[in-house]
């Protein structure tokens, strides 16, 4: 501390401000990336839900859902796309009129390594249209 001279405080403050502003800027960009990624995931969930609804069996639905979800996401921010299907109205049969929750789970990679990045998912509720 003794070696600090007049004017050094400005440099230190400048360095701190630069770090804070850079951090804020990174987080803002990261939020924009996350928003774009979630938009893609939402769209993927919607088209995946439609493709699942018209499948004739649960096995077919899972396969079809994974293919459609992977094909509908182009963003380089997203990887590890997985689709999960859950029966939600007490029925376990793949039958027309029953409801399932289709969840598209992805890993989002933004320029902020923590908090904003990570696993994100979107769930849609769909009615089965082509069951038994």
């Amino acid at each position, binding site marked *: 501390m003794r070696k600090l001279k007049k004017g050094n405080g400005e440099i230190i403050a400048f360095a701190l401000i630069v770090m804070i502003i850079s951090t804020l800027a990174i987080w*803002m960009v990261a939020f924009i990336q996350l928003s774009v990624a979630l938009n893609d995931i939402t769209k993927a969930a919607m088209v995946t839900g439609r493709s699942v609804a018209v499948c004739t069996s649960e096995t077919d639905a899972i396969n079809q859902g994974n293919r459609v979800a992977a094909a509908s996401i182009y963003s380089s921010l997203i990887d590890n796309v997985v689709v999960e299907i859950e029966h939600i109205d007490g029925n376990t049969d793949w039958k027309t009129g029953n*409801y399932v*929750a289709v969840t598209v789970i992805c890993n989002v990679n933004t320029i902020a390594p923590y908090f904003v990045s990570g696993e994100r998912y979107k769930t849609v*509720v769909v*009615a*089965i*249209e082509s069951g038994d």
Partner: protein
Amino acid sequence: MIKKLRKGNGILIFGVAWMLVIFFLVIMFIEVFFARQNAMNTQIAADSIANGVAVYMTYEGNSYTDAVRERDYVKSLVNLYTFHDPTDTRISDASLDYHSLIEDNVVDIKVTGDFSYMTNLNTSYGENGNTGYYTVHTGAMTEYTNYGRDLIHTAEAYLGCLYDYGSSGETNHQPSFYKLIYTYADHEYYGYGDSIPDCRADIDTEEYYEAWLENVGIEYRTEYALNHAEEGLSPDELNQARDNYIDNIRSDVEYSTDDNSRMFDCSGFVSYIYSTVSGVSGRVDTEMIGDSSNNDYRVGVTHVLPGDIILVNGGDHAVLFVEWEGNRFRCIGVSGGDESTYANDNGSVRVSESDLSSVPCVKYSYYNIGDVVACYHYSAPEELFQ
């Protein structure tokens, strides 16, 4: 104020101003982020509800009230599994036309989601000052029409009515007697392959009964007298026996004057129901229905809807589909074929407890998928009778 500013104060003011700008930018980004997510969630909820209601109305729903009830059910599922709770969901009554007979309907739904701003800075939105609303208007097609339901309801009104076999199926039961009335009335026999333009159910049976009694009945009296001439009856006894015989016939025939005692064969019944509901008259026999197998009205067994026509028994029998019961088709119609179908009653309403109790009638019947030759979904009766 200006005089009191010293050297370097400008930088301070400039820095504070920029800090405020950045602060508000951050707030703006965060609010836009959540507003955007909320809007997408609202869109997803709208799609889920619209499609769910559309599917429900296609296969089960029967009225606008049903659609509203299903809408609330899907909304609860959406809330439970997507954690999004729309503030308001409405289905257009006009778009889901309860009175529609022919065209498919649209589930026209409006879903409104709200989201709260982080600050009270913007008071121009929403009723609460700091609450914004995002409304999505979306629609989904449904195959729901009231047409099929009306067909079934009309058909069910004839449960228990007499039917006639058609030309290939004579019977020892009373229907042969009823046929006599129509024969006398110059109406050709109404069965397979015949081309009578309208269903015999439209015939006023009472009118023809009275005519028969006055004319053809005489021949019966004579026939009866000849058949019993060698029984040693006195003229009075013979007359009394003839009168009793005629009275018995009269009591039976009076059943045919009842509104519930109309006669059909299987395809005649299908034609009559379609004609009654649509107002488009016509007669389509089973063979003609089968001939339409290459047109656009044929559907797979898994897509059959209430009121659709199903050909069974090798294509010789036509019935109307009512609903699924397990893996079986529950249908309504009259039994074609022969006397063996008597036992195939399945809960139909008997005509009476008299001698006619064994006469088969309009009834529910059940068929397995393997029995089905073809299913037809006629969107409009004009297409059926063309």
